């Protein structure tokens, strides 16, 4: 128990410092965990309580993702979402997979590394767009929809991986069944749900917490993993009053996720030997491959490679979802690799996000001196 308190206290300090410097906090939570845990000073060990808190963190992260996923909105923006999404998926999955496989991971491990490698941090991308005042850039919308597309792919990936040795068709039917039941509950109980959420006492927050936990606990009986259950709940609840649910679930998500990140760091184990060469290659690839997909997206969507630079700058950071994949499916060595990748890309990503506009301007000036002026693209 003291371990959690110590870890939380360190995270509180880190949160203060990173907010002050406006850099992402996630890599520092993980680093703090590494320093305090097995690989470092050994002051904090994971126990039943910390595991429960971490589970909650993951569950609320995925519930939140489900809430933000409004299928009808994606359908309305299909073409833009699909082009950029498919470029991003193919380039990064392939580079991630081939890179990991050539470095000696098994096929299954390579697939997991590739997924963590592919999925950028939605939280970091969106915070960076807001904090660096880039919302009006036309690339901002592309980045936002890219994040939505990545979330969708993550769900499909989680579904396929967690099917394990069950029959995939049966498993997918089960998931769709769960989704249908939850949708029906949200649809027919909409007025009741809204009447609860509208109250200003403690009821909405108790209800949100209980609904998420109850749904997660049903996974045992249905053979559908908790992750899928809570995403489905989020998607179903998004048809009622998603903002209210976000508001009531946010405190749980914020606190439990910190525990999730720091204890992910705590459980990282260097005793099996760390291959720094391999880790360095994966980190470099992670940055380069997003550059390639970013530039391709820039050319296909905005007709400009420089736009791609902007997209790249905001999507380098891997974060919460990569860690989630590592925690759910990664072996010790995969976990260490993903942790290193998250730490390196998110720190570099925070700088590229801050300076991508100046970088772009610099390149444009440089280009102008040598060649006829570039056509100026308007923000639409």
């Amino acid at each position: 128990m003291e371990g959690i308190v110590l870890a939380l206290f360190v995270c509180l300090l880190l949160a203060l410092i990173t907010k002050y410097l406006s850099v992402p906090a996630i890599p520092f939570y993980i680093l703090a965990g590494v320093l305090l845990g097995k690989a470092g000073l050994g002051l904090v060990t994971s126990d039943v309580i910390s595991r429960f808190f971490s589970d909650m963190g993951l569950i609320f992260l995925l519930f939140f993702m489900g809430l933000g996923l409004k299928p009808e909105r994606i359908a309305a923006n299909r073409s833009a979402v699909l082009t950029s999404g498919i470029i991003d998926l193919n380039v990064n999955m392939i580079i991630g997979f081939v890179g990991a496989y050539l470095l000696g991971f098994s096929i299954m491990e390579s697939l997991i590394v590739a997924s963590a490698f592919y999925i950028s941090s939605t939280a970091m991308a969106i915070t960076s767009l807001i904090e660096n005042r880039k919302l009006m850039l036309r690339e901002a919308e592309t980045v936002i929809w890219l994040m939505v597309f990545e979330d969708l792919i993550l769900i499909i990936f989680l579904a396929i991986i967690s099917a394990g040795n069950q029959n995939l068709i049966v498993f997918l039917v089960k998931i769709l069944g769960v989704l249908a039941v939850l949708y029906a509950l949200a649809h027919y109980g909409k007025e009741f749900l809204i009447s609860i959420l509208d109250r200003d006492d403690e009821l909405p927050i108790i209800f949100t917490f209980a609904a998420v936990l109850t749904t997660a606990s049903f996974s045992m009986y249905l053979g559908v993993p908790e992750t899928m259950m809570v995403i489905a709940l989020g998607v179903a609840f998004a048809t009622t009053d998603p903002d209210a649910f976000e508001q009531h679930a946010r405190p749980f998500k914020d606190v439990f996720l910190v525990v999730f990140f720091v204890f992910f760091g705590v459980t990282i184990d260097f005793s099996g030997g760390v291959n720094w060469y391999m880790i360095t290659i994966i980190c470099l690839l992670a940055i380069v491959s997003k550059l390639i997909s970013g530039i391709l997206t820039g050319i296909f969507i905005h007709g400009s490679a420089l736009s791609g630079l902007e997209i790249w700058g905001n999507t380098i950071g891997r974060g919460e979802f990569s860690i989630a994949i590592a925690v759910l499916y990664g072996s010790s060595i995969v976990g260490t690799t993903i942790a290193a990748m998250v730490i390196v890309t998110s720190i570099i990503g925070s700088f590229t996000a801050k300076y991508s506009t100046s970088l772009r301007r610099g390149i444009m000036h440089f280009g102008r001196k040598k060649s006829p002026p570039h056509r100026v693209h308007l923000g639409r």
Partner: protein
Amino acid sequence: MSAMSLRSLNLPGVGTKYEFETDKGDTVAIFFTKTGTIQMYTLQKDCHTPSAAEMTPVEARRLGNILSGAIIEADQESVEIAFSALADLRVTIHSFLIPKAIAGRTIEDLQIRAKTGATVIAVCRHDRNIVNPPPAFVFETGDAALVIGESDQIRMFEREIMVE
């Protein structure tokens, strides 16, 4: 001209975006972000880097007041409220800085209601607010008075009372 079309867009994870292009070809975009702040971007025609300002909700409302022409001077704010359900009843609330000329006099003594029809509903004195001051209330220099009435009555108040 009615060429101005306001587009609104819901951006997942970010918030709501409102954007329109002016007659002159400049673009203005406002984002209500989920973090509670409001960002305003302006993009001059033929320019490709927008400039941005981030505001708290209070600051954004103040900007809105300025843009809607409600503020005459920095210390004289005015809000007009229209109740469309009540036969378009319109009332104006206006703030005035009390000049030296009427300092030391009371609301009753100035015959505010009789002369103008407007009512003093609040007075702000040294950051303290006195709501519904009694007729015997004595004004001091530096007071800011909040007066409610129809726009004609407010104008009358400005002409009859403020110059005494």
